[in-house]
């Protein structure tokens, strides 16, 4: 018996292998050298491995390989989304270097890397099977990661995420089963057949499939887990989830929406998604208004931001995908930046520093940090000169171009509300009468600072040198 897969197939997944192996190496090194270099070593290995993976993926740019019988398709699409995933991973790793207890740090890092493997898999997955595999790999690791802090809230977040996400996975899986029943193939390519338009199984399967996707994207009404989990999870993990999970899931959604739908059915089929994307923009932003915890607030913010990204995809145009990707990158950068500021300010596992109350008077005590935080919040709101501004205008342009004006209108309303919410934090930082409340704030570890600075530079640079890759169209075969 010969293996059905060739050298080409394995070469295509080489980056995943490297990343997975890095996770193993981290554990191994930790086992051997733990007494000497508790955390720095694990982090260094993880950084090196991730950067190596990123380099390997970058090498695949411009190639076009359908590995594993079309289950894993390497192309510009997978490369670019993979890089975003790794960007998020690096950002999360950087936040891990913020001090606190060393307990289980190697395990955490390893799990994080493996979770990122799942996300990388999703970026390239083109069959329902690989998609399921990727989602589960991503999620299973995250269930653990969420609970890896010695806090009641962290454990609760893990439980909630576990129960709800598993349910959603089951729905997704059931949808996949129905899609399989409709087309007789696990390949997404098979769904693009015109015969599917009249197939009830296809419609029901797509519905369940999209519910699963919408849950991962935390779109309303499948969003309820997100604020709780982001608040409860350790800070680096929350950052990871906001960026990596979203990037990977959007990759899947884009592949499904752009390449796997029969012509003529796609707009009607995806209409519910656009609708809940629109609702998410409002609910997410409104939800921010009454929050007292930064991580929770950013969770709500994420709900709305995903809505923006989907608004770019509405109409499923080539340009839309480019701008969705651009906004995704921008969101990743500014979100990581905000988390980096929070990481500098919070120390230890209890993460009291993420309470908005503790930001009071920051403007006077730590002007640089306060300025950075303000910058990222304004970026999230879409004020210039941040890339959030350019991203929004591009999304508006696409929405105007494709005729989804109502999405554009909801985006405008949502953005206005969001500024209200972000301004509240800024207000807390700069209000003169809050100056006295400023508690003693730790200096913070260097890594989050570096991350913060890089994010800041990137957020500005992306405005003036927007990263708008062409040839991003996802393939299924």
């Amino acid at each position, binding site marked *: 018996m010969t293996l059905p897969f060739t050298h080409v197939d394995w070469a295509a997944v080489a980056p995943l292998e490297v990343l997975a192996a890095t996770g193993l190496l981290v554990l191994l090194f930790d086992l051997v050298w733990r007494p000497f270099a508790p955390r720095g070593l694990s982090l260094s290995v993880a950084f090196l491995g991730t950067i190596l993976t990123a380099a390997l993926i970058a090498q695949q740019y411009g190639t076009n390989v359908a590995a594993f019988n079309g289950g894993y398709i390497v192309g510009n699409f997978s490369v670019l989304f993979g890089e975003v995933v790794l960007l998020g991973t690096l950002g999360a790793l950087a936040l891990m270097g913020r001090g606190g207890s060393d307990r289980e740090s190697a395990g955490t890092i390893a799990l994080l890397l493996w979770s990122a493997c799942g996300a990388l898999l999703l970026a390239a997955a083109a069959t329902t099977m690989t998609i399921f595999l990727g989602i589960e790999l991503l999620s299973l690791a995250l269930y653990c990661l969420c609970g890896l802090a010695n806090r009641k809230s962290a454990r609760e977040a893990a439980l909630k995420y576990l129960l709800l996400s598993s349910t959603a996975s089951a729905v997704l899986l059931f949808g996949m089963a129905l899609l399989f029943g409709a087309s007789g193939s696990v390949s997404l390519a098979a769904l693009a057949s015109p015969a599917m338009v009249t197939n009830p199984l296809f419609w029901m399967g797509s519905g369940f499939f999209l519910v699963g996707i919408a849950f991962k994207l935390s779109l309303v009404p499948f969003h309820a887990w997100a604020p709780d989990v982001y608040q409860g999870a350790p800070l680096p993990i929350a950052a990871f989830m906001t960026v990596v999970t979203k990037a990977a899931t959007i990759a899947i959604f884009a592949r499904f929406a752009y390449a796997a739908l029969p012509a003529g059915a796609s707009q009607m089929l995806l209409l519910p998604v656009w609708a809940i994307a629109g609702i998410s923009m409002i609910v997410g932003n409104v939800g921010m208004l009454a929050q007292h915890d930064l991580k929770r607030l950013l969770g709500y913010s994420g709900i709305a931001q995903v809505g923006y990204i989907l608004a770019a995809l509405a109409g499923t145009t080539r*340009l839309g995908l*480019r*701008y969705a990707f651009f906004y995704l990158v921008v969101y990743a950068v500014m979100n990581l930046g905000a988390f980096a500021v929070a990481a500098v300010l919070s120390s230890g596992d209890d993460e009291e520093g993420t309470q908005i109350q503790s930001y009071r008077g920051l*403007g006077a005590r730590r*002007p*640089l940090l306060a*300025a950075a935080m303000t910058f990222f919040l*304004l970026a999230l*709101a*879409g*004020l*210039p*000169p941040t890339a959030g*501004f*350019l991203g*929004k*205008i*591009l999304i*508006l*342009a*696409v929405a*105007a*171009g494709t005729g989804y004006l109502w999405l*554009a209108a909801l985006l*405008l309303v949502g*953005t*206005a509300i969001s*500024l*209200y919410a972000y*301004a509240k934090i*800024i*207000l807390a930082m*700069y*209000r*003169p009468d809050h100056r006295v409340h400023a508690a003693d704030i730790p200096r913070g570890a260097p890594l989050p600072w570096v991350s913060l600075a890089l994010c800041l530079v990137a957020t500005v640079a992306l*405005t*003036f040198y*927007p990263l*708008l890759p062409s040839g991003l169209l996802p393939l299924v075969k």
Partner: protein
Amino acid sequence: MLLALVLLPIIAGSAMLLLRGEDRRLYRGIGVVVALATLVLAVAARSEDWSAPWLRAPFVANFHLGIGALAFWLIVLLALCTACAVLAVESARPRALVGQLLLLEGTMLGLFISRDLLLFALFYDLMLVPVFFVLLERGEHPRDAWRYIIYNFAGGLLLLFATAAFGVLHGTTDVIGSAGNAISGAWVPWIFWGFAIAFLVKTPAFPLHTWMPNTYASLPPPVAAVVGAVQSKAGLYGFFVIAMTLMPQEIARYSTALIVLGTISLLYGAVAALVQTDAKRVVAYSSLSHLGLIVIAIATQQPLALAGAALYIVAHGLFTAALFIGLGYVEEREETRSLARLRGIGANNPRLAGALTIAGLAMLGLPGLAGFVGELVIITGIVQSGNVAVAVVAVISVVLASAYVLRLFQGIVNGPVAHDLPVRRDLTWREGIAIAPLLLALLYLGVNPHAVLASGSVAIPRAPQSSAAGVTTP
């Protein structure tokens, strides 16, 4: 050099925010030098044109900078106001204030020299930030910062939308200051109102003005001077270079609506100014009234009215800045702005009283000062466009203006000396120099307004666009 023009104040301002120490003379000195340097640069770069590519899709956008006819005078006004405002800074923490003022100047400079709609939109939102922070840190109530940012940001969002839609429709946003970019179509009304509402918020005009009295009252006087004098003109400038140039049919079609809004603003601001007890609020509401007149002028599209509008934009900037700075001196001396308490300043501060007098007279449109020429030419244009009833309302507002200006000015300057208020010395040389250029400019433009008047009638480009270096088609 154009790039340097924008970057100089921004870099200087940012650096100032990051530095330490509160040496008032040092920072004031740097600020004045930077502001004057921008003035020199602007004059030197008046005919320059600089461009670099930005976006290729979904529409072409470039970093395209150049100084238009009207923009030039706005820049001169801006640099002058900034220099004076910086010089008038009187704070225990001057560093950040001067820094924010320079940032404000830089962002507004960027706005005025943008030749690309997207770049314009960028600066349009960006210039909110320094003011927001000043309000936040030094305003009288955080609520004012809220109100300011929410209203203006909402306007900015509409501008954003309109810009995006314009870009999609037209294929390029590199259109400011060049002819032949007028668009038409079923969508254009939406785009037009997107721009128009954004500009009306900024100006502000009824009913989008309620952020303004609080903001002006709350801001420290130097910043209030720059915001009231120049930032409020961003919307009007936008009307000139965007709404009028790119959507001439729409502005003609909706001129009635704009005229009605302008007329309501005109009267509304005037009667509200009559009964304010806060000196700065009088100026704020008067601003609503005066800028309403410019909105009307723009809506009529009459060349004479536009010429007058250009002059009045500059004149209003000058006397608003002078008044805010002057009232700042009063507040600093007497520790109150309440007209119920202030009186008799003139007895001990004749120079301050004189400065306030000239600024106030310019505001009420005294013949011979710049404000008068603007009003006269604008209303002449309004009559020429056939809106005689509007002109009647406009002249009524002139009478009301004399009433509220005198109420303000006499309330502060005249009357018996208020013995319950502290007696301070008259204007120092520095304070005098900070306000004198504005007053001299008012006098000069009142006699010889030719150059500025001309800029209004040529603001709408008719000549073909000069080819810009570095621009490639997608």
